[in-house]
């Protein structure tokens, strides 16, 4: 599903280059649950951003579902963002001015889904996450764990093929983290959604079925 070939990312320093990622070769198949681990500054977030098309690689090729996407124009890239890729952020990034319901609805608005279908899909997701009672609350009225649940609900409502999660439990305590990780596992096993997460926690990594260690911009064998 995701094929990275000789991917590098660097920025110029003086006359030379400083590599954040160097010659990454990586293939992730559909239905995998991958954890990317590594120390701070090792380049794992950059790798995730490149996979999520938020950042362009300096060198190399990136094939998403067999299609080259590393030099894609904005329009096609937004199509992928709308349909195939869902994001979950460490800082949740909910829109403060929108309620839980409206936050979850937003990706569907960008997909131009008709109102009636939108309603039923948001209702389904709310139901599934046991958040029907909270649908009219604003993000600042929720606990961190609940906010991240909303963040995940928002990521899956558009039925993406892959979820990219950047330290999804980094701001949560361990009980909440457990709930979130179980949810990911469930989404992976039941809904067959490919999940790629960046994490520091060994415990979290055990929920996945593959761990990629990254150090100094290179994948450790």
């Amino acid at each position, binding site marked *: 599903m995701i094929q990275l070939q000789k991917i590098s990312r660097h920025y110029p320093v003086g006359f030379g280059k400083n590599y954040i990622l160097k010659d990454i070769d990586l293939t992730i198949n559909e239905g995998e649950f991958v954890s990317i681990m590594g120390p701070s500054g090792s380049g794992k977030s950059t790798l995730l951003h490149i996979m999520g098309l938020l*950042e362009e690689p300096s060198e190399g090729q990136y094939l998403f579902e067999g299609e080259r996407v590393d030099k894609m124009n904005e329009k096609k890239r937004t199509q992928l963002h709308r349909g195939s890729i869902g994001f979950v952020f460490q800082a949740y*990034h909910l829109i403060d001015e*929108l309620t839980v319901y409206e936050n979850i609805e937003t990706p569907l608005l960008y997909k131009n889904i008709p109102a009636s279908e939108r309603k039923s899909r948001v209702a389904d997701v709310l139901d599934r996450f046991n958040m029907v009672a909270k649908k009219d609350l604003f993000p600042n009225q929720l606990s961190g764990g609940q906010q991240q649940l909303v963040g995940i609900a928002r990521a899956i409502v558009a039925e993406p093929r892959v979820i990219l999660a950047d330290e999804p439990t980094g701001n949560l305590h361990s009980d909440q983290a457990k709930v979130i990780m179980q949810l990911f596992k469930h989404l992976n096993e039941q809904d067959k959604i490919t999940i790629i997460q960046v994490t520091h926690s060994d415990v979290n990594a055990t929920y996945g079925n593959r761990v990629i260690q990254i150090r100094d911009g290179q994948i450790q064998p």
Partner: protein
Amino acid sequence: MLVSYLRIAWRNLRKQKVFAAVNIIGMSTALCAALLLSLTAYREWTYDNFHENGAHIYEVLGKENTGINIKTGSSMAQPLAEAIQKEVPGVKHFSFMAADNLPVRYGANHYYLGTQMVNADFLKMFTFPLLKGNKNNALQELNQVVLTQKAATTLFGNSEAVGKTIELNLGGKWRPLIVSAVAVDIPDNSDINFEMLVRLENEPEYAVTKNEWNASNFPLFIQLDPGVTAASFEKNIIPLLHKYYNGKIEDLRKNAGATAKNSEVFWLEALPLRDFHLDENSHFYSGLNKFYPWLMIILSVLIVGIACINFINLSIARSFGRSGEIGLRKSLGAQDRQLLFQFWMEAFLLCCFALVLSLLLMISLLPYYNQVFGHSIALHVFRNINVVAGVVLGFFVITLLAGGYPAWKVARLNILEVLKGKLGLGKSSGVRNGLIILQFVAAVVLISCTAVIWQQLKFIQAAPLGYNTSQVISIPLDNAPPSVIAAMRNRLAEFQEVKSVTGSMLNLGLGKDGSSGNWTRGFSYKDRHITTQCLVVDYNYATTLDLKILAGRDFSKDYGTDSTGVVINEKMAKQLGVADPVGMEFKMGDDQPVHVIGVVKDYHYESLRKKIDPLVMVINEPSALYYVFVKVETPNPVAAMERIEKVWKNLNPLAENDASFLDENTQRLYQQEQRFSKIFVSGAVLAVIISAMGLFAIAVLVMAQRRKEIGIRKVLGASISGIVLLLSKDFLRLVLVAVVIAAPAAWYFMYRWLQNFEYHVAIHWWVFVIAGLLAVVIAFLTVSMQSVKAALANPVNSLKRD
């Protein structure tokens, strides 16, 4: 989607009350001011636009090259009109126009009606629709009269007007006239105003000068055939002028000498109808400078511009606080143009609020505005589709300017950086600083212009005019018959405080009747062409007005020969070129020769905008007196005036216009400038307030941004004053730059404006220093309100929060 945008916009507005308030209040007051000003300009520009033949109607202006300058005259000789129609191709209609306020009687009732005396073609040229009667024959006969509906109702009530006979007093005689038509009341944007139209041939002067080529009495209007241009008319008329004005042209050519070797010295120009209202040579010129409507547009653009700048700065600043949302939307698949649309729509929403508020504000301010600034804008202008379209279009442009740039800027933000929260409101940004400078340039220009205008008005009000303004009362005679005037003179003699009485053809300054005029005559003297203003006066004119007599004497009843005597001013004496003019004789045209009996020191018989022209005062036409001047010497001049007025109203119950002291009249001359300065002051105050509001909001943001820095500095031992200075410094620097840019610009504008006045103040450098200081102080106060608050805050709070 739209609903979601609206929802988020609305919630954002409610959350950030300071910004919403600054934006909405600033924008709505600015829009309100801009609406009022542009409607005023629009009204001035759309005067007389209802005439169907408007594109082909012209006023004929005479131009003479006197060798020193080009003189323009708006009165034409009567035989010229017919000659033009017969001999110049393409002239369809012509009409003279003479406006007067004439006494009318119907049955036992007397009225004064505003009258235009015109020629037969008048109604065919100008579009004044008739309710009853036919425009082709309504003025066919000399004894016909056309009334407006209002006048007809005044005279006849609800009964039929057409066919009734009324009597009109012309030159002291009552003459019967038959009502031939009733016209719709004159629209309020018409320069040609009347309640009654009569044929010009009824005017007593008419027969006297019927065949006089050298007497120019009335302004002449022509309608050209479609396809005939003003230029071709001006060219085709030259042979005709050479035929009838050969003598005058020869005189002028001698005067002009080398300056006019290969060009015409006397020619006619056609002034198109659209310029009637604002061209200073036009018969209808109201004194409103052509540039003023433009100035109002400029002023409204400035004010709206300042509000837009606030909008832009605040929106950009605020959007950094929403960077999370922007990044998130991008990661959810929002395209740049969708974000652009979303943020523009928020601006649009805010502007809509502001527009609605400004319309309400405008409607409630309109009566006050009209009263203070002497304009007459009515709300029915909004029935005009052009006005509505203009407002809507202008509004869209404003939302694009105010909302478009921030939206564009926000949409282009780098998604990763915003998601990571790396973007913040920097300590300063080029665009923002540039815009703040621009705002304060506008504010400082307006402040210093206001100061200079104010000085000039003071100067005008205090300038010695060369005659007694404080003790002389002027009474408009309103066409009272000579017998009444004689009676008035006798009654005045009984008053203790009345020192002397005289009369004149023209008022000094602008009286309560609002009429003004001049009489220019040209003649040859010793083979030179002499142009001079001419004034019919009564005995004791110089004495009553305290004019300084340099040589000779005033008109006096003690001498018998005064009917052929003239009193001239210094300028005229200089033009005649005679060392001791008293006693000399000259001939003004074909009239009797006159001799000079006195020379008076030049005095400002016209406004200070003009140089003093040569002047000849004559006394030979007692019927041509329209004003009486009374000099009083009393500790209570107001009471004296009331008593005199009472006597006058008793003698002439029809008198419409009140008496006034001459100093009131001279003030009235500068009404336009006074209104103009009021508008300017209001504009300047508004601009400064809106700028300060914007600066305040930006300061709030910057202080919030620098809370932590301030906390650290305080912990490290910075003093409060040091911090206030540190925080205010950046803003003050911007304002200082603005002052440096604004001063030369303001100097230039004011230099140009002062050129309108022959007599004006000098522009002092300290005006700009004071204006600049004022701006700096205002900016400092605004910013320090925030910086003091930030500096006083307990550093523990700001540091703990992070």
